[in-house]
């Protein structure tokens, strides 16, 4: 169900990799997710990036904050339920210290979710981001993806503000129930 890739256009994960490279975001930490797998594999195979898993999402935010203060740009990859563990670290570290944490969240809980726990967790995500005044975009279309990712990375650096890019099932195909 992944969006049709026109012959001239690379798949979504390659668009993200190209934008990260162009903007020199070299550090990638994540708690894995099936939908993110092609992105994680692609980044891990590219020696430009340092890519590793953490035990919790807030740990990844801490590492990314330290790296940014040390002069190394990074992003954090997670799924919706992982984002739900982050309000404290965003409100007490990323936002008040003006440390730009760019988060890529693969969206579960909508457009064909089969796990009610995921569906409810997903509904807490945008209200939390709005309450913290963290900019967020939902990426649904391949033809808009490079513009959204590239501009978001630039703005995060220039304004020292965190941002979240939500990767919709419309873009990635999402995760579907297999009986």
């Amino acid at each position, binding site marked *: 169900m992944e969006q049709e890739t026109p012959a001239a256009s690379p798949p979504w994960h390659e668009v993200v990799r190209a934008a990260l490279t162009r903007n020199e975001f070299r550090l990638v930490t994540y708690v894995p997710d099936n939908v993110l797998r092609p992105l994680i594999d692609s980044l891990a195979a590219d020696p430009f990036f340092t890519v590793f898993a953490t035990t919790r999402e807030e740990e990844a935010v*801490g*590492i990314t904050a*330290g790296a*940014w*203060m*040390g002069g190394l740009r990074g992003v954090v990859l997670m799924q919706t339920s992982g984002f739900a563990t982050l309000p404290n670290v965003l409100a*007490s570290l990323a936002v008040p210290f003006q440390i730009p944490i760019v988060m890529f969240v693969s969206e579960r809980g909508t457009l064909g979710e089969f796990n009610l726990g995921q569906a409810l967790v997903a509904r807490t995500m945008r209200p939390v981001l709005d309450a913290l005044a963290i900019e967020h975009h939902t990426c649904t279309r391949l033809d808009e993806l490079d513009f959204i990712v590239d501009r978001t990375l630039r703005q995060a650096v220039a304004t020292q503000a965190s941002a979240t890019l939500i990767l919709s099932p419309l873009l990635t195909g999402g995760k579907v129930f297999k009986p």
Partner: protein
Amino acid sequence: MTEPATRALANTKTMYRADITRRLVALLDRDEAVIGGIGNTNFDLWAAGPRRQNFYMLGSMGLACPIALGVAIAQPHRHVVALEGDGSLLMQLGALATIAARAPRNLTIVVMDNRAYQITGAQPTATAFAADLVEAARGLGIARSHWAADEADFERLVRVARSDGGPSLIGVRLDNQPPAGQTERDPAQIRDRFMRGIGTRPPHPA
């Protein structure tokens, strides 16, 4: 049942956090970065005197080690010290496993273990009972993990950690004396001063 903890602590002196922190800071003569976890650990780092290479957390309990790991990855030629309390470290033990997996050569963790959540009324932490954080760190893969026997041993362990080529953890058993000061809570200034202190940005003009 609690034998490992008893054995590990048998020869460790109970020390004073403000004194240990001052001894640590006095040894840092190569612009080492220091990440202060929250609470009294943080306050005593502040009270040990101004250093532009110090970062002071204000919340995000448990994240001193991850922040220090991020700095250590970004600046592999600078040594980085994480100061963390026992309650804080217990909240984020997985961070030690991640550090062991990355094995940075330039990272030292100092655990200030007073066996209590001192700042909230001295409620006992798990280390007041059976938990041993040095043993836990070894189990999670940080082989260079030791209790400091006394102040001189602490200083020796810091010197070894700084030159030993691998992540290290030093446990310090503490008494219950209050902190010697209180950190100024201005997050943007703390972050900016730290970034200039470790060379990410140029020093402030005048």
